[in-house]
Every structure is written in C-alpha cells, then in structure tokens.
C-alpha cells in the first residue's frame, strides 16, 4: 500500500527553498511535498507572523509545520548582545517565551509542529575566550535559549524539538557564506539533506513505522574472533586493544538502544552452549544473556532462524534489522526476507558504532515506561512460557498466572503510551487507524466518545499498558471504534475482559446495542479470529461486522481481576 503524502510547510526566517527541496526529493518513506513558507519573521511579531502562518497552513492544507529559525531573528535582546555588547538575560528568555507562545498557536493548525534548536551564530567567533562567559558570551546565551525552549515545549503535545546540532556537527563547516549572501540560505546542502532525513525518520516514527528488533550475529559482529575456535578467553573484546575497545563501544551503543525500547536478539552459527558461556563469562562483555529477548544459535539457515525468532518475539519481519559482518549472510537474508532491513556493514569494527547510529530507523517521538522495560517484559514472557509447560491445562495456566487488569480512562499520564500503542499495533487492531496525540484528543472531544487503557500484570511481572479500546455512543448504538491489544498479552482472556468493560460502559451510557466493525488489513486477521470466537453475533450481510445485544451482560473472565475507575459517557 502506498504511503499517503505528507504535506509540510517550512516556516523559517531564511530562504528555506533548499531544505524544502531536500525534504520533497528524499526517496525514503513517507513521501513528502514541502513548501517553503514566505514568513519573514516567525517569532518577533507573533500577531503578524501568526496570521501569515495560519493563512499559509490552511490554504495549502499542510499536515506538518517545521519551524527553523536563527536565534538572532527570534530575540531582539540577543541581537543587542551582538550590536552593543550587552544583553539582559531575562529579556532574552522573555523573547524565547514569546516564541513558544507562537508555537502553541501553530499547534492548533497542524497535526505536528517540528522545531529545530538554535545554532550559535557565526559572529560568536568574535567573542573569543568569553563566548561561554556567563551572561555576556553569545554561545552561553544561545545554549540557555535552547534549554529554555526545550523546557517550555516538553509538555506540549504535538510539538517535537529536534536537536539541529546533530546534523550541524556532522559537517566540517555547516554554514556557507556565499549561499547566505547570494540567496539568504544559511547552511550547506549536506546540512539540509541530513535534516530532511531526520524529519523523515520522525514522520515514520510518529506513524509507528520503526524497527523494533535488532538481531545480531556474534563472531566478528558482537565480538572479535570465532568463539568456537578460540574460546571466550581468546575473543577480542575490551582490554588494551583498539579493536577490542571498539567492540565494547558497539555493545554499549546497542545497550543504550535497548533502554529506548528496542529488543535485541542473536542469530548466529555457533554451538549454543559455547556462545552463551561467552556472553555470561567474559568479564568485559557489556551485553549479557538477560539483555537478549531471544536467540537462535545453531547451524541452521539464518533466514529461517530469523523468521522463527520473529515469530517467538511476536513481531513482523518489517520490524527487524539484521546485522552481520559477513556479506554472504547479508545477501542471503536480503534475498530470502526482503522485509528485513539488512544494512551494509563496515569491515572495520571501529566503524560499527557510526554504522549503527546512521541507520535512521529507530527514531521515537516519546519514550514510555514500557519502552524502558521492554527487555525485562520479554524475559518474564520466557518464564511464563516455561510455566505453561508445567500446567495441566490452558485453564489451569491462566489461573496460575494471577492476572490483573487495571482499566483507566484516557488522560495526560497514559496518553503517550496509548498513542504509541494505537500507532504501532497491527495484529489485534480493529480499525488500524493511526492518530497522533493531538488528533486523538480532538477526536475524543468531538462527540460522545471515550477511550480506556488497559494495564496487564501477573505474578511474573507487569506487561504495562498493553490494551486500549474506544467507544462512540450514537443514540442507542454503541460503536466500538478502537480495539487494540499488544501481541505480548494475546490469548489470556484479556480481550474478553476488555469487551466486558466496554459493553458494560455502553449499557451504563444508555446504549441498547453494541457494534464492532473490523477494517480488514493484511495483518489484523488475529482480531477477526478473536471476534469470531468472542460470542458477538456476526452480521449475515457483512462478514466484518459484529453485534451484541446489551440486554445481556457480556461475561467477565473469572481468571482475571479487574480494577477500574470509570464513568458513563456523557
């Protein structure tokens, strides 16, 4: 299915034509059509610039606004520091706050507002050794402006602040004076190209199109040497060895990514016992066995192992990245599994960290508690699966789990995770609609609608906020709009508990009939199978529509303890 084109308006105080061109012609998904706004001054005169931006946005129907400004154009007080050598910090901060107020108004016009941090102006070089001097150094003041901006937009839904230094610092000289004097374009093409790639990565992330799993080879990928040949004591890892240090740094970078919610796994041709002993025994190993959510360490075909491991982790192949130092293995996996992203990989381990950080596929808009603990969740899942083996029946296993589901209405605290779940979940997803926080809040406010979140825990651990459902009351009909459950908790009657909760709320809100209509996709067959066995009645003339007469209560699964705070839909 072709991705819908995202319409972007770039609001800058400089000529943004080159940036808009790079955004439009970057070949990665999603397709973008970018327009450079004619706004002369985004921040200094909020009323005038606000009207201009509103017109530009509404006329062309843009989805996203990107605001990229120079600090001296935003703050007259900062300009005073350059022109007269003095600036009152409080005045500069007031200018930043006015700029943030301007952003808040833009937020109502666009689904997302992306803001670039400020770059210290080139004239800072004239400040020499006092550039960082408290209150009088230009670099010092611009850094404070950026911190103030970050603080102020941190809790603004729909606004994302991008660190422009990430792509400025990658260039030896990001500014191009000739482009500036000839065309009022402050930066080189490469800066705009990198910025465009980051924006595209952000757009993918905001729609849940991110890679979730990194599957790694071991020998000469995670460590140097063949562990089956030299044993773990002979591996190059850490120590007084440049190559060994590079492998440690690579592992440390992978660990940092896992703290952001990425799952790590191993797919390696080795003897499993030998490889696991190395992971557990080598004193300088950063990544240990518990850091990996699963592994296939054997002599079988790696493509087959990747498919099997992805199934175990309940992720689609389009969520997987496979890293291997051997070209033959990369080619094999690329050919067999085109959905898996298999990046080219440098021959030198000292380039591994750069290669990993350059992949542009792990971006995330918000970091939730579930992201931080995802590896632990999979470890608990392994323990749960082992417990299933000792239970006499599926029913007994569910009893032994001591399941508890906490139901909570949508609120500011659970919004980031709820939005993430809505945009990332494919299989148990009734409508597969993708909305960001602003769009979801707007939808909830536009009718008799309510959304609940479901947190699932058992004696093995807390699976976190893993379900959501939303309902719209239309007279005596209650329409189930969203029904989303993470694949991590499928098949434990949480689905039935969710239906119990929403049908009960529908009844309390005055509805007599409950309707659920599945919007079929290539991935949500599990949701259809659940509805078919759920006890809802399928329509004779629509195989995807199901109904329930609210004269009878939908039963609560007895194995699940439900804790809820709910009110009828007003």
């Amino acid at each position, binding site marked *: 299915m072709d991705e819908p084109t995202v319409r972007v308006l770039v609001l800058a105080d400089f*000529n943004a*034509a*080159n940036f808009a*061109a*790079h955004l*439009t*012609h970057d070949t990665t998904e999603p397709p973008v059509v970018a327009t450079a706004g004619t706004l002369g001054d985004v921040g200094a005169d909020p009323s005038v610039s606000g009207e201009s931006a509103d017109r530009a946005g509404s006329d062309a129907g843009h989805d996203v606004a990107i605001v990229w400004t120079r600090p001296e154009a935003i703050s007259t007080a900062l300009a005073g520091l350059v022109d007269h050598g003095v600036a009152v910090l409080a005045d500069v901060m007031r200018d930043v706050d006015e700029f943030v107020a301007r952003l808040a108004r833009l937020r109502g016009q666009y689904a997302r507002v992306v803001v670039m941090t400020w770059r210290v102006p080139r004239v800072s070089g004239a400040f020499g050794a006092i550039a960082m001097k408290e209150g009088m150094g230009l670099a010092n003041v611009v850094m404070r402006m950026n911190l103030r901006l970050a603080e102020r937009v941190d809790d603004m839904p729909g606004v994302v602040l991008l660190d422009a230094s990430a792509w400025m610092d990658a260039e030896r000289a990001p500014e*191009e004076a*000739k*482009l500036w004097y*000839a*065309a009022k374009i402050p930066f080189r*093409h490469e800066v705009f*190209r990198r910025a465009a790639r980051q924006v595209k990565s952000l757009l993918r992330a905001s729609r849940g199109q991110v890679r979730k799993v990194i599957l790694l080879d071991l020998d000469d990928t995670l460590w140097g040497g063949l562990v089956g040949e030299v044993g773990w004591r002979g591996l190059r890892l850490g120590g007084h060895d440049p190559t060994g240090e590079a492998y440690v740094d690579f592992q440390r970078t992978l660990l940092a990514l896992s703290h952001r919610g990425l799952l790590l796994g191993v797919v390696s041709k080795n003897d499993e016992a030998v490889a696991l002993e190395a992971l557990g025994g080598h004193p300088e190993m950063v990544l240990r066995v518990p850091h990996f959510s699963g592994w296939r360490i054997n002599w079988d075909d790696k493509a087959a192992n990747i498919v099997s491991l992805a199934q175990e982790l309940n992720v689609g192949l389009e969520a997987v990245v496979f890293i291997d130092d051997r070209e033959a293995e990369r080619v094999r996996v690329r050919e067999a599994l085109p959905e898996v992203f298999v990046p080219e990989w440098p021959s030198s381990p000292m380039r591994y960290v750069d290669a990993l950080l350059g992949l542009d596929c792990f971006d995330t808009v918000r970091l939730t508690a579930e992201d931080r603990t995802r590896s632990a969740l999979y470890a608990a899942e392994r323990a749960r699966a082992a417990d299933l083996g000792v239970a006499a029946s599926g029913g007994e296993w569910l009893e032994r789990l001591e399941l508890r589901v906490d139901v909570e209405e949508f609120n500011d605290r659970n919004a980031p995770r709820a939005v993430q779940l809505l945009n990332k979940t494919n299989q148990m997803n009734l409508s597969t609609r993708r909305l960001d926080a602003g769009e979801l809040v707007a939808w909830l406010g536009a009718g008799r609608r309510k959304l609940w979140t479901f947190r699932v825990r058992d004696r093995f651990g807390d699976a976190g906020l893993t379900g959501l459902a939303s309902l719209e009351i239309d007279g005596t009909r209650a329409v189930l709009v969203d029904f989303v459950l993470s694949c991590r908790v499928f098949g434990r009657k949480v689905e039935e508990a969710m239906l119990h909760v929403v049908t009960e709320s529908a009844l309390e809100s005055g509805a007599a009939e409950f309707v659920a209509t599945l919007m079929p996709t290539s991935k949500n067959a599990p949701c259809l199978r659940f509805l078919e066995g759920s006890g809802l009645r399928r329509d004779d003339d629509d195989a995807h529509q199901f109904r329930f007469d609210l004269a009878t209560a939908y039963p609560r699964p007895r194995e699940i303890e439900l804790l809820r705070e709910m009110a009828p839909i007003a």
Partner: protein
Amino acid sequence: MPDLRAQLREAVFAALDDLNAQRPPHQRLPKALDTALTGEHGPLDSLAFVNFIVALEQRLDAMFGTTMSLLDDERLDPTAGQFRTVQALIEYLEEMRERPANG
C-alpha cells in the same frame, strides 16, 4: 599530470549531481557537454543558478586546493555565453585556470 579539461568536466558533473539531488527526476540535468544551463529557455532559475555555482566552487576548491571565485566575479551574469551550456562553462573555467593571477 591529469588533463585539466577532464578535471574541470569532472567538477562540473559533480556539481550537477549536487544540484540534481534537490530536483525531481524529470527536472534533473543530464551530465553531458551539450546540456543547457541558462539562457532564455535554460533550466536554471536564479536560485538554482546560485546553488549550482556555489556547489561548483566547492568542487573546484576540493579538486585544486585553491579558490576559484565565480560568484564574486563582476562578470557573473547568468545570461552570459559562458554559462549557457556545460561545454561553454568548462571552456570558461579552463581560461580562468590558465589566466595569470593579478599583481
């Protein structure tokens, strides 16, 4: 010693690559000597012309290690003959390289 004209052609083609990265496929300029650049029906508008010249300066700078200032040249005129085609531009650059420095 590398052939100067071949080096200049390489620099101009590289600058065309830089420019083409910002243009839709149907507007990309072919890397050929007879490719039209400016003139009445030339494909480069004023912004594209500036982008191209700055990219070319950077390529020449990297290639020869000395600055060839095109943008600062008082004779810089997009409608002038030396900017009409790739061939004319290379000949102009060749003449600049071989011209004795002032002073």
